[in-house]
């Protein structure tokens, strides 16, 4: 099995006629993702890549029964696209767009409280893939393979690298979820770990974190309460310089949280193996 996304999930692509939308929709189709439609205001009624194009997500949902959406639109329009998807009843929203203004995302997060069934992945993320079944986003399917390892990560290419290494050593993946690197985002590590915990097909878990924020710590707290998954964590950015800081507001809010050291300790306390380099992950997971 898998989490969030299956071969039968009905997917639309917002911004399907754009350059990025076209390229990645083709990739998604190539691995068998059930793409049932796309949106592009003003192009409703036409067909693109063999799928029906609609003016709005509401129209697309009405016509196709879509449950999931991949968003490939530029940053000024992506926040609206997320809200449109939620309001139209989409329950899995994957926003690839990088560079969305933080205040826009804060508004989007508040908007989504009105749609508790809608799960957002991203923005600024590679999306998710259930190997051999379907993907929404840009994770290259050729480096993935089916198996029992759940993988959740804040980083894009680091995810690819780890997935690739897992596949090369015969450890396939149930689902790979790139939750994205923005400070204000949709599903967090904790949310995704909870889903993996409930997925019988997932027996192992890799968490790839990063400095900043407390999301890794929250996931570690969850795992500390007891987990059936064999888990390895990796945190990047131990030597990254602290941003040249200005003003105290950020420091007052975040205090000492968010360091690589703190995150690694949190995982160790939870009984989770911590890899010091990505090369170590596969070995620790066996």
């Amino acid at each position, binding site marked *: 099995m898998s989490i969030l996304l299956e071969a039968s999930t009905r997917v639309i692509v917002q911004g399907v006629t754009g350059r990025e939308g076209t390229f990645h929709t083709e990739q998604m189709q190539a691995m068998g993702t059930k793409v049932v439609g796309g949106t592009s205001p003003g192009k409703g009624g036409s067909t693109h890549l063999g799928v029906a194009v609609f003016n709005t997500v509401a129209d697309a949902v009405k016509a196709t029964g879509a449950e999931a959406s991949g968003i490939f639109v530029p940053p000024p329009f992506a926040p609206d696209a997320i809200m449109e998807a939620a309001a139209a009843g989409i329950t899995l929203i994957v926003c690839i767009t990088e560079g969305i203004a933080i205040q826009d995302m804060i508004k989007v*997060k508040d908007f989504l409280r009105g749609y508790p069934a809608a799960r957002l992945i991203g923005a600024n993320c590679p999306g998710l893939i259930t190997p051999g079944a379907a993907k929404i986003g840009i994770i290259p399917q050729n*480096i993935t393979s089916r198996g029992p390892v759940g993988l959740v990560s804040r*980083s894009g290419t680091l995810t690819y690298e780890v997935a690739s290494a897992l596949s090369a050593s015969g450890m396939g993946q149930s689902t790979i979820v790139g939750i994205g690197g923005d400070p204000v985002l949709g599903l967090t590590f904790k949310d995704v770990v909870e889903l993996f915990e409930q997925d019988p097909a997932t027996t192992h878990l890799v968490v*790839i974190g990063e400095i900043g924020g407390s999301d890794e710590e929250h996931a570690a707290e969850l795992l500390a309460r007891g987990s059936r998954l064999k888990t390895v964590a990796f945190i990047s950015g131990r*030597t990254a310089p602290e941003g040249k800081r200005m003003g105290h507001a950020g420091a*007052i809010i975040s205090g000492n949280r968010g360091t690589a050291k703190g995150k690694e300790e949190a995982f160790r306390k939870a009984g989770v193996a911590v890899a010091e380099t990505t090369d170590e992950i596969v070995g620790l997971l066996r």
Partner: protein
Amino acid sequence: MKLLEYQAKEVLASLGIAIPPGKVARTPEEAAAACSELGPVAVKAQVPVGGRGKAGGIKLAGTPDEARAAAAQIIGMDIKGFKVPLVYCETALDIGREIYLGLTVDRDARANVLMLSAKGGIDIEQVAEESPESIARLYPNPWRGPLDFELTQLVFDAGLGELARPLAAVINQLYRAIPELDAVTAEINPLVVTKNGEVIAGDAKLEVDENAMWRHKDLEQRYGGVLEGDPYEVEAKKRGLTYVSLDGDIGIIGNGAGLCMSTLDLVQRAGGRAANFCDIGGGAKAEVVENALAVILMNPRVRGVLMNVFGGITRGDEVAKGLVSARDNLKMQLPLVVRLSGTRAEEGRRILKENGIEPGASAWDAAEKIVELTRVRA
């Protein structure tokens, strides 16, 4: 985008907040003139970092001559890596009390937070640690903004109830920095209550979200380019790269922020020091690789370059070909180690070897190699 104090104050004033009279001076003469006009002033270095007072970047001047001398000392000074481009000459306030008022994004709450404390002044971080309850907080709904009753509660929670009206007004004005400027941090510390009861911004910090600059082109035009930042960062920005200068000697290129950060970690682990952080993004196109190499090679401290690239949709063999041509175009002489993984990594590594570029067997191996190669040359 971080604004300098005088820029932030200009912006606060445009939002309706009172600021002390002040003038920018780019030369000692201008500082003397400002003092003639304003009377006794503080001559303040304009740099986008805290701690300038301790670094000698603020001097009081009672006369134009004193102002001239102070400016001569301060302009051009280096404060935490920033060369001071100009000073701000500002009249002193008749301080009754100092309040802390800040606005920032609370990443964990995924929300903006307003903070108010009666214990204003430079030691607010210590206050936050020792008596966090003395900093009152409000998380305004992002669509509604702070409501009147929420502001009243905030002000009373901070023990500043007797100033409820003027403070609520200032907080509303500061909050406008969010809808109007996409501020990610806006801070007034101290917010001064003068002895005759006026509420005036004693200092100001303002940082605007880089991702929202498309909504604020005027800001970029108005305030961009005042500061002489790191020359490599300036060049990288022109070329559209995500680049941060560091103080080591090994140039780093990675595709993806996480991969790039983990490469820095590996270099340090192997005993080396990175000269930069340079994320060329997911695609790893030949042109972008060439731009990144060009910027890194501008820095004379750099003794070698480590590139860590994952070939995903862009295949490893294509990445390798692009990299070879970039090196050749730039006539690069320094050691270059490349760690290539992902799709068609084998073919990629073969192409690199054929062209005399050292491929790393793993990221760790590559890090050890570049550290060794740069150490040998030292």
